[in-house]
């Protein structure tokens, strides 16, 4: 295995190089993971210190005053994500179903290509687009605009993931259903979607995990608010934007709350992505 047939000095050199380089790959892995541990360590340590009941129940305190919480941002984030899911999941699933089940090669190729391109576009640019599309005509920043931006970011993730899930459903299922005289709609509803159910739920959760930590597009769409704003037509607070605002503020108490917000966000995302991975087993996609 280690080049034992070649004796002499070249053999020793080769074995030395072999050993050194193998160790180096382990060192690379450690170097990649160390920042993760450092970040999690600080977020948990600082975040746990900042988490308290007020964080989840109180509105933000005025600048400079201590106390207060991010209750409105927690609610706002959940509301934004809920609206984004309501828009992004049906659209993404429909696209995934169509390209996987019905479309001719050229059509599905074009849609997959567009989805991949869309997935690579910086989310701040998506924010600019939604600003022009929604914020300008409505004459106000709004939770709705934020949710539309998040839905656009989520769409390609859900589309590609559901596309892949559906391709794992055995072809014989479809043939059996068609042989029984089912229409395409019935084949899809009664056979394919049932067979792929857990994978499709997982695809939706992946989309959710992708947008749950988004900040940049929200800066240009839902903005922020220090009040209870639950109506989608108004600017809306979110955990991510609140963490950003507090992090760059000069107040120690706000820094403490920013860490607490970061911990809440990470907990939310880890839970969602773990469920997605355990449920449907397609968490391997980044």
């Amino acid at each position, binding site marked *: 295995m280690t080049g034992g*047939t070649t004796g002499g000095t070249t053999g020793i050199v080769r074995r030395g190089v072999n050993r050194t380089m193998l160790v180096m790959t382990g060192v690379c*892995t450690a170097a990649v993971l160390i920042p993760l541990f450092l970040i999690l360590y600080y*977020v948990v340590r600082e975040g746990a210190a900042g988490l308290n009941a007020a964080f989840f129940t109180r509105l933000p305190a005025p600048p400079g005053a201590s106390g207060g919480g991010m209750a409105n941002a927690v609610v706002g984030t959940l509301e934004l994500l809920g609206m984004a899911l309501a828009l992004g999941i049906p659209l993404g699933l429909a696209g995934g179903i169509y390209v996987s089940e*019905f479309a001719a090669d050229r*059509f599905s190729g074009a849609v997959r290509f*567009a989805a991949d391109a869309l997935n690579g*576009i910086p989310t701040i640019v998506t924010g600019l687009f939604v600003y022009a599309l929604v914020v300008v005509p409505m004459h106000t920043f709004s939770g709705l605009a934020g949710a539309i931006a998040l839905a656009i970011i989520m769409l390609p993730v859900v589309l590609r993931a559901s596309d892949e899930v559906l391709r794992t459903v055995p072809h014989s299922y479809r043939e059996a259903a068609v042989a029984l005289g089912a*229409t395409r709609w019935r084949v899809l509803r009664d056979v394919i979607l049932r067979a792929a159910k857990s994978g499709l739920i997982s695809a939706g959760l992946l989309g959710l995990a992708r947008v749950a930590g988004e900040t*940049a597009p929200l800066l240009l769409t839902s903005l922020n608010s220090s009040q209870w704003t639950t109506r989608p037509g108004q600017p809306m607070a979110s955990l991510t934007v609140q963490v*950003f605002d507090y992090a760059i503020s000069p107040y120690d108490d706000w820094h403490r709350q920013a860490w607490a917000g970061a911990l809440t966000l990470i907990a939310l995302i880890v839970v969602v992505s773990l469920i997605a991975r355990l449920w449907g087993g397609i968490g391997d996609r980044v």
Partner: protein
Amino acid sequence: MSASASRLGTAREEGRRPRPGSDAVFHWTLRGLALAPLAILIGLGVQLFRASAASRHAFGWGFLTQSAWDPVFGHFGAWPFLFGTLLTTGVGVVIAAPLGVGTAVFLAELAPFWLRAPVGYLVELLAAVPSVVYGLWGIFVLAPWLQQSAEPWLGDHFSGVPLFQGAPYGVGYLAAGLILAVMIVPFVVGLSRQAISAVPAHQREAAYALGSTRWEVIRRVAVPTARSGIWGGILLATGRALGETMAVTMIIGNRPAVSASLFAPGYTLASVIANEFTEATGALYISSLIEIGLVLFAITVVVNLLSRLLLSRIARAGAAA
């Protein structure tokens, strides 16, 4: 791909006509919805192009090379931002690419099996940490450490290198590049690992049979065979770095200037949009920021297309094998 696509469509291709009535309605509805990504992509490009008209007409191509960024007098040039984006992305990729490929080799070839799934998950977790959390950590942990320890040390030991000269600010190109490296490394690892794992076992076995060491098999067989997948992953990661906004905005220092020193504060395309767009007044100012968005859009679309081309090449090679 040709075998798996169009599964229910095959009935039609074989001569059976689509059923009339509700089935056709259902089919065309899905078809319409499936066009959404294409429509959004085109709409995005057109919208950015149109909304940046004022800036494009006022400054032409010089917009990309001019350094003045003066909202008061209405002079706008994107060079400091373009420079900052390219420099921080460069730093990030130069660090993330070798580390990521090394990690991928470790995970695909060397790590004990019980270790692969958990370590793989941890690496993916790096991609799941929100950008704003990286930024928070960057402000309160990384930047102070750079300012007090790392940058003075680099300055002392590499004083001849222009990259490492000047006062240690903490925030700046180096901080942003380092954070970017951490943020994009999971993309390099994920795709490289996939590509290396896809190398057929018989190729490795042939090299072992000729007396190669493990490292020689990796370097001469596995990695070269997986080359296009690895480059695809690196390019995809590059695309992410180019457009990364929040973490960079929080630690680059936000100064619209060009500097050869990595220690200096700078600015990037994405950051200037995030910081200034909602506060910009005047049509030309807003239009210039939108043109910066257009530049970012164009660069990332091209980088992503190249990446997808390389990645589809391994998918095809895999299907052929």
